[in-house]
């Protein structure tokens, strides 16, 4: 695993970890907050309802107080009027009403359940077994208090939790009460709870989106880094390849030279020794032995062979006489071999280039001529080597049938020229091919900086050192 890839995994792991922790903390915080808020809200709402009940009761009492007659005899009549008034005091639609019981549990007023009036409900229990009327009367006798119980809700006809408030009308020993159904409160609380849940969910989503997009961007970044890494690696491989070729060319040059200046010279010296032997025999007027003739013939053959191999590995012309002459040399061979007319234009100066440029340009010409011979069906070729505007420019132009540069699957371009192009670029030069049905033009440019002063360094300094 490459280093950037490992960093990538660490980054993604961190994002996931951070997201989980954030999610956990945020949702916990919200939950605590919601529990607290709902509780506080409940207390507040209940308090509000209690206050309301007290207020309504107070209004009801105030509105009937003035009815209390001074005259005790008229009491029963007044009671009836008061009961009527209370019965008609409604609020909050159907669900807000007052009821009156006497201290024995007999129902006096009940606007929503008139069938109860006149009967005793002293022993009435709700679903939980609570003695409702008794508790209400007891609370009233204490001076007024709240009490929660289940009672049928008029607007729905269903039992529902009700908070009742009861107090006494002392004069007649009546208990007057009213109440609110708490389901409204609970509804409101539920809505609040839901609102909080919605918030938590939204936060979850935001965290998820942020985490995912972070991971996505990390990936994107990682891919970009990886790609550039790959590109750099490829460049390095290419450079390495070019260096291998450099070494190979140098090796070829070296071996070629060793063959030419070492082995062949030894063979030549043997040849002259054999000849000296022959001359000695001649001088002594002796017969020349057959094996000597054989040896001389075989030796000549050996010299030819080694010379051929040496020339094939690396043309000595290039080293001794320079690039232009070497190009002329292969151009002439080419022309003789193929019958294609060839013209070479060369600069007035010579030996300007260092070995590696010499070899590269020579290989370009060699490879191009091979391609022309194999595929181009050209009638003439023009090779030109010149120096213009700080560039050494080599052009090879043929009038053959050309080829499709884009679809270079054909062996015309093949591996050869592409390698040479890379090679030229490796030596800081430029390589260009133009091809049409009228012919092909290959241009190679080498910056002057690559060879400036090479002639002096190679030729003059060596001589000065000699002195």
């Amino acid at each position, binding site marked *: 695993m490459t280093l950037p890839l490992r960093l990538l995994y660490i980054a993604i792991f961190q994002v996931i970890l951070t997201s989980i922790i954030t999610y956990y903390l945020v949702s916990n915080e919200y939950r605590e907050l919601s529990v607290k808020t709902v509780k506080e809200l409940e207390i507040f709402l209940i308090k509000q309802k209690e206050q309301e009940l007290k207020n309504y009761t107070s209004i009801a009492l105030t509105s009937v107080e003035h009815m209390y007659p001074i005259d005790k005899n008229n009491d029963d009549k007044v009671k009836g009027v008061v009961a009527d008034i209370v019965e008609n005091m409604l609020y909050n639609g159907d669900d807000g009403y007052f009821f009156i019981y006497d201290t024995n549990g007999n129902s006096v007023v009940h606007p929503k359940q008139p069938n109860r009036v006149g009967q005793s409900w002293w022993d009435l229990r709700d679903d939980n077994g609570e003695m409702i009327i008794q508790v209400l009367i007891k609370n009233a006798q204490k001076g007024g208090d709240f009490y929660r119980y289940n009672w049928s809700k008029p607007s729905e006809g269903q039992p529902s939790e009700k908070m009742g408030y009861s107090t006494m009308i002392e004069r007649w020993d009546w208990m007057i009460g009213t109440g609110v159904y708490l389901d409204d409160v609970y509804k409101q609380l539920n809505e609040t709870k839901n609102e909080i849940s919605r918030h938590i969910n939204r936060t979850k989503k935001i965290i998820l989106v942020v985490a995912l997009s972070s991971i996505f961007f990390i990936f994107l970044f990682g891919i970009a880094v990886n790609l550039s890494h790959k590109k750099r690696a490829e460049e390095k491989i290419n450079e390495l390849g070019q260096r291998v070729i450099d070494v190979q060319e140098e090796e070829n040059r070296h071996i070629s030279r060793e063959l030419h200046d070492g082995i062949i*010279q030894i063979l*030549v010296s043997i040849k002259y020794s054999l000849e000296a032997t022959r001359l000695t025999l001649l001088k002594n007027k002796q017969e020349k032995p057959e094996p000597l003739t054989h040896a001389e013939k075989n030796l000549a053959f050996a*010299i030819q062979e080694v010379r051929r191999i040496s020339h094939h590995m690396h043309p000595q012309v290039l080293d001794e006489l320079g690039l232009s002459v070497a190009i002329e040399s292969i151009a002439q061979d080419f022309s003789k071999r193929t019958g294609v007319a060839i013209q070479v234009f060369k600069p007035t100066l*010579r030996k300007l280039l260092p070995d590696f440029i010499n070899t590269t340009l020579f290989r370009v010409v060699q490879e191009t001529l091979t391609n022309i011979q194999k595929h181009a069906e050209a009638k003439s070729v023009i090779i030109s080597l010149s120096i213009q505007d700080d560039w050494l420019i080599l052009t090879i132009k043929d009038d053959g049938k050309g080829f499709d540069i884009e679809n270079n699957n054909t062996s015309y371009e093949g591996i050869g020229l592409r390698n040479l192009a890379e090679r030229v670029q490796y030596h800081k030069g430029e390589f260009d091919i133009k091809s049409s049905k009228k012919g092909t033009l290959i241009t190679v440019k080498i910056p002057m900086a690559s060879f*400036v002063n090479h002639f002096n360094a190679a030729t003059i300094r*060596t001589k000065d050192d000699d002195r």
Partner: protein
Amino acid sequence: MIDNNNKSKISVMLVDDHPMVQGGLTACLAFYDDIEIVGATDDGAEALSKAKELKPDVIIMDVSMPKMNGIDATEIISEQLPETRVLIFSMHDRPEFVRSAIDAGASGYVLKDTSSEEVYFAIKAVAKGNTHFSSSISKMLIENPMQADNERLTTREQVILSHVASGLSSKEVARKLDISFRTVDAHRRNIKTKLKVETLAELVRYAVNHGLIEKNK
């Protein structure tokens, strides 16, 4: 075959970086009474001083040598010792070598794989002021007619150009190369003709524009 007339012997100097070849050829040439090996050296750079000292009639000159090749050495020797003939003695059989050798002033060209008899005849021919080429070379020259390469600068001319362009006067160049002031001047004229320029400034510009010397030198 072995010529025993009374003419004075032809003095020959060998320039070849391979002692075994020197030895082999010397052994063969020893059979011919009318030539004498007066000296030998193994590099083109040394050939000149040795030739000045020995004043041989003929120099047998190899081409590929470590410090200065035989063709460049031939050019300098023909410039300074016009009486001395140079016979190239090489393994290179490409026409370009032959042409360069002729351009440099060589009188003959024999291949190292020809017989010593032919070397002997070549020495005799060039000593008389004629030219001599190995038979395979002659054949090649007929097949590839040579155009004299007299539009290009020779290596020697190029050395002088780079000195002049670097700011040396003809006198300084003469001292540096150990040649006469006149020779330098003659070279300068040739260079100007070949480059088709007239002034010193143009010479310098040419040398700079072609990468012979660096710009601010």
